Protein backbone atom coordinates (compact mmCIF):
# COMPACT_ATOMS: atom_id res chain seq x y z
CA UNK A 1 0.00 0.00 0.00
CA UNK A 2 1.30 3.46 -0.85
CA UNK A 3 2.24 5.95 1.89
CA UNK A 4 -0.42 8.40 0.64
CA UNK A 5 -3.19 5.80 1.01
CA UNK A 6 -2.09 5.11 4.58
CA UNK A 7 -2.02 8.86 5.28
CA UNK A 8 -5.66 9.10 4.15
CA UNK A 9 -6.94 5.96 5.83
CA UNK A 10 -5.24 6.60 9.18
CA UNK A 11 -5.74 10.38 9.03
CA UNK A 12 -2.02 11.14 9.43
CA UNK A 13 -0.26 14.51 9.17
CA UNK A 14 2.51 14.82 6.58
CA UNK A 15 5.41 16.80 8.10
CA UNK A 16 8.00 16.31 5.36
CA UNK A 17 9.24 14.14 2.51
CA UNK A 18 6.16 14.71 0.30
CA UNK A 19 8.05 13.38 -2.73
CA UNK A 20 8.08 9.96 -1.09
CA UNK A 21 4.31 9.67 -0.68
CA UNK A 22 4.17 7.11 -3.47
CA UNK A 23 6.64 4.79 -1.61
CA UNK A 24 5.20 1.33 -0.97
CA UNK A 25 4.67 0.24 2.64
CA UNK A 26 4.77 -3.54 3.04
CA UNK A 27 5.23 -3.87 6.77
CA UNK A 28 5.53 -1.95 10.03
CA UNK A 29 7.97 -1.76 12.92
CA UNK A 30 7.31 -0.11 16.29
CA UNK A 31 10.32 0.71 18.50
CA UNK A 32 12.09 3.66 20.09
CA UNK A 33 15.45 1.92 20.39
CA UNK A 34 17.52 2.82 17.36
CA UNK A 35 19.72 -0.29 17.44
CA UNK A 36 16.62 -2.46 17.58
CA UNK A 37 15.26 -0.83 14.43
CA UNK A 38 18.70 -0.99 12.83
CA UNK A 39 18.98 -4.69 13.63
CA UNK A 40 15.45 -5.87 12.91
CA UNK A 41 13.26 -3.57 10.78
CA UNK A 42 12.57 -4.75 7.23
CA UNK A 43 13.10 -2.54 4.18
CA UNK A 44 9.80 -1.10 2.98
CA UNK A 45 8.41 -0.75 6.51
CA UNK A 46 6.69 2.17 8.18
CA UNK A 47 8.51 2.87 11.46
CA UNK A 48 6.36 3.94 14.40
CA UNK A 49 8.33 5.88 17.05
CA UNK A 50 8.41 8.88 19.37
CA UNK A 51 12.04 9.75 18.54
CA UNK A 52 12.25 13.00 16.57
CA UNK A 53 15.99 13.70 16.16
CA UNK A 54 17.99 13.48 12.95
CA UNK A 55 19.35 9.98 13.59
CA UNK A 56 15.93 8.49 12.82
CA UNK A 57 16.44 9.66 9.24
CA UNK A 58 19.92 8.08 9.09
CA UNK A 59 18.34 4.79 10.12
CA UNK A 60 15.33 5.13 7.81
CA UNK A 61 17.66 5.85 4.91
CA UNK A 62 20.21 3.10 5.66
CA UNK A 63 17.45 0.53 6.21
CA UNK A 64 15.40 1.76 3.21
CA UNK A 65 12.26 2.26 5.27
CA UNK A 66 9.25 3.75 3.45
CA UNK A 67 8.05 6.24 6.06
CA UNK A 68 8.29 7.24 9.73
CA UNK A 69 5.15 7.73 11.83
CA UNK A 70 5.62 9.93 14.92
CA UNK A 71 3.15 9.24 17.70
CA UNK A 72 1.47 11.29 20.47
CA UNK A 73 1.66 14.59 18.60
CA UNK A 74 5.46 14.64 18.36
CA UNK A 75 6.93 16.72 15.53
CA UNK A 76 10.25 16.17 13.73
CA UNK A 77 13.14 18.50 14.54
CA UNK A 78 13.98 20.90 11.72
CA UNK A 79 17.14 19.10 10.55
CA UNK A 80 15.24 15.79 10.69
CA UNK A 81 12.53 17.20 8.40
CA UNK A 82 15.17 18.63 6.04
CA UNK A 83 16.83 15.26 5.65
CA UNK A 84 13.43 13.61 5.12
CA UNK A 85 12.87 16.00 2.19
CA UNK A 86 16.31 15.19 0.75
CA UNK A 87 15.84 11.44 1.08
CA UNK A 88 12.18 11.39 -0.01
CA UNK A 89 11.23 9.38 3.06
CA UNK A 90 8.07 10.96 4.50
CA UNK A 91 7.71 11.76 8.20
CA UNK A 92 4.07 11.42 9.21
CA UNK A 93 2.35 12.18 12.49
CA UNK A 94 -0.59 11.20 14.66
CA UNK A 95 -1.94 12.22 18.07
CA UNK A 96 -2.54 8.57 18.88
CA UNK A 97 -0.11 6.52 20.96
CA UNK A 98 2.03 3.76 19.44
CA UNK A 99 -0.22 0.84 20.48
CA UNK A 100 -3.28 2.34 18.78
CA UNK A 101 -1.64 3.43 15.54
CA UNK A 102 0.33 0.18 15.27
CA UNK A 103 -2.95 -1.74 15.61
CA UNK A 104 -4.63 0.35 12.93
CA UNK A 105 -1.67 0.01 10.55
CA UNK A 106 -1.50 -3.73 11.18
CA UNK A 107 -5.18 -4.15 10.30
CA UNK A 108 -4.77 -2.04 7.19
CA UNK A 109 -1.75 -3.99 5.88
CA UNK A 110 -3.24 -7.37 6.80
CA UNK A 111 -6.15 -6.91 4.39
Amino acid at each position, binding site marked *: MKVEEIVKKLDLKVFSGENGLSNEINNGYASDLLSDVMGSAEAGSAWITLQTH*KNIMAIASLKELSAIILVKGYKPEEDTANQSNEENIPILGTDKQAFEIAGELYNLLKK
Partner: protein
Amino acid sequence: MHFEYNVVSGDFSNAGTASSQIKKVLKQLNVDSVTIKRIVVALYEAEVNVVAHSYGGTIFADIDTKEIILRLKDTGPGIPDIKQAMKEGYSTASPQVREMGFGAGMGLPNIKKNADKLDIKSEVGVGTEVMIMVKLNDN
Protein backbone atom coordinates in the same frame (compact mmCIF):
# COMPACT_ATOMS: atom_id res chain seq x y z
CA MET B 1 39.58 0.81 -2.87
CA HIS B 2 40.40 2.73 0.27
CA PHE B 3 38.27 5.30 2.06
CA GLU B 4 38.72 7.26 5.27
CA TYR B 5 36.15 9.13 7.33
CA ASN B 6 36.66 11.30 10.35
CA VAL B 7 34.22 10.74 13.24
CA VAL B 8 33.70 13.56 15.74
CA SER B 9 32.88 12.77 19.37
CA GLY B 10 29.32 13.68 20.34
CA ASP B 11 28.33 14.70 16.80
CA PHE B 12 25.16 12.60 16.62
CA SER B 13 23.64 14.64 13.83
CA ASN B 14 26.32 13.35 11.44
CA ALA B 15 26.38 9.78 12.76
CA GLY B 16 25.73 7.48 9.84
CA THR B 17 27.45 9.63 7.23
CA ALA B 18 30.25 7.12 6.63
CA SER B 19 27.75 4.24 6.56
CA SER B 20 25.69 6.07 3.97
CA GLN B 21 28.73 6.76 1.75
CA ILE B 22 29.98 3.18 1.99
CA LYS B 23 26.48 1.96 1.10
CA LYS B 24 26.56 4.06 -2.09
CA VAL B 25 29.96 2.67 -3.06
CA LEU B 26 28.84 -0.93 -2.48
CA LYS B 27 25.71 -0.36 -4.58
CA GLN B 28 27.85 0.98 -7.41
CA LEU B 29 30.01 -2.14 -7.13
CA ASN B 30 26.84 -4.28 -7.49
CA VAL B 31 27.34 -5.99 -4.16
CA ASP B 32 24.14 -7.94 -3.39
CA SER B 33 21.60 -6.16 -1.21
CA VAL B 34 21.63 -8.72 1.64
CA THR B 35 25.39 -8.24 2.07
CA ILE B 36 25.07 -4.45 1.82
CA LYS B 37 22.43 -4.48 4.57
CA ARG B 38 24.71 -6.49 6.87
CA ILE B 39 27.66 -4.16 6.27
CA VAL B 40 25.54 -1.05 6.81
CA VAL B 41 24.10 -2.31 10.13
CA ALA B 42 27.56 -3.26 11.42
CA LEU B 43 29.22 -0.03 10.31
CA TYR B 44 26.43 2.23 11.59
CA GLU B 45 26.57 0.65 15.04
CA ALA B 46 30.36 0.94 15.13
CA GLU B 47 30.19 4.55 13.94
CA VAL B 48 27.65 5.46 16.64
CA ASN B 49 29.89 3.80 19.25
CA VAL B 50 32.76 6.11 18.26
CA VAL B 51 30.43 9.16 18.42
CA ALA B 52 28.91 8.14 21.77
CA HIS B 53 31.90 6.76 23.66
CA SER B 54 35.20 8.05 22.25
CA TYR B 55 36.97 11.41 22.02
CA GLY B 56 36.96 11.04 18.23
CA GLY B 57 38.28 8.63 15.67
CA THR B 58 38.74 7.56 12.08
CA ILE B 59 37.07 4.92 9.94
CA PHE B 60 39.30 3.15 7.42
CA ALA B 61 37.45 1.12 4.78
CA ASP B 62 39.20 -1.23 2.36
CA ILE B 63 37.16 -2.93 -0.34
CA ASP B 64 38.35 -5.53 -2.82
CA THR B 65 36.46 -8.15 -4.84
CA LYS B 66 36.38 -10.64 -1.97
CA GLU B 67 35.75 -8.63 1.17
CA ILE B 68 35.31 -5.32 2.92
CA ILE B 69 37.47 -4.56 5.94
CA LEU B 70 36.36 -1.72 8.20
CA ARG B 71 38.71 -0.44 10.88
CA LEU B 72 37.44 2.08 13.41
CA LYS B 73 40.27 3.56 15.45
CA ASP B 74 39.47 6.00 18.23
CA THR B 75 41.14 7.76 21.07
CA GLY B 76 39.10 7.53 24.21
CA PRO B 77 38.46 5.79 27.51
CA GLY B 78 38.77 2.30 26.00
CA ILE B 79 36.77 -0.76 27.01
CA PRO B 80 37.91 -2.32 30.32
CA ASP B 81 36.03 -5.60 29.81
CA ILE B 82 35.30 -6.48 26.18
CA LYS B 83 33.48 -9.70 27.09
CA GLN B 84 31.04 -7.73 29.23
CA ALA B 85 30.64 -5.05 26.53
CA MET B 86 29.65 -7.76 24.04
CA LYS B 87 26.72 -8.86 26.23
CA GLU B 88 23.31 -7.90 24.90
CA GLY B 89 21.76 -5.24 27.12
CA TYR B 90 25.02 -4.04 28.68
CA SER B 91 25.75 -0.38 28.04
CA THR B 92 27.79 2.44 29.57
CA ALA B 93 26.01 5.15 27.56
CA SER B 94 25.04 8.39 29.31
CA PRO B 95 21.39 9.15 30.20
CA GLN B 96 21.29 11.77 27.41
CA VAL B 97 22.43 9.23 24.83
CA ARG B 98 19.88 6.71 26.11
CA GLU B 99 17.07 9.24 25.80
CA MET B 100 17.85 9.45 22.09
CA GLY B 101 17.17 5.73 21.82
CA PHE B 102 20.82 4.69 21.76
CA GLY B 103 22.63 2.84 24.53
CA ALA B 104 20.35 -0.19 24.66
CA GLY B 105 23.34 -2.52 24.72
CA MET B 106 22.54 -3.85 21.27
CA GLY B 107 25.28 -2.21 19.22
CA LEU B 108 28.16 -4.66 19.57
CA PRO B 109 25.83 -7.71 19.41
CA ASN B 110 24.34 -6.26 16.19
CA ILE B 111 27.86 -5.90 14.76
CA LYS B 112 28.74 -9.47 15.70
CA LYS B 113 25.56 -10.84 14.11
CA ASN B 114 26.23 -9.09 10.82
CA ALA B 115 30.00 -9.41 10.47
CA ASP B 116 31.93 -12.43 9.20
CA LYS B 117 34.72 -11.40 11.54
CA LEU B 118 34.81 -8.94 14.44
CA ASP B 119 37.95 -8.12 16.35
CA ILE B 120 38.13 -5.56 19.16
CA LYS B 121 41.37 -4.31 20.67
CA SER B 122 41.18 -1.77 23.44
CA GLU B 123 43.47 -0.11 25.92
CA VAL B 124 41.94 1.70 28.89
CA GLY B 125 42.72 5.41 28.78
CA VAL B 126 44.12 5.19 25.24
CA GLY B 127 41.45 4.04 22.81
CA THR B 128 39.78 1.26 20.90
CA GLU B 129 40.25 -0.35 17.51
CA VAL B 130 37.37 -2.31 16.03
CA MET B 131 37.90 -4.45 12.91
CA ILE B 132 34.88 -5.69 10.99
CA MET B 133 35.23 -7.99 7.98
CA VAL B 134 32.38 -8.96 5.69
CA LYS B 135 32.81 -11.26 2.69
CA LEU B 136 31.37 -9.88 -0.53
CA ASN B 137 29.06 -11.69 -2.96
CA ASP B 138 29.23 -14.85 -0.95
CA ASN B 139 25.51 -15.51 -0.42
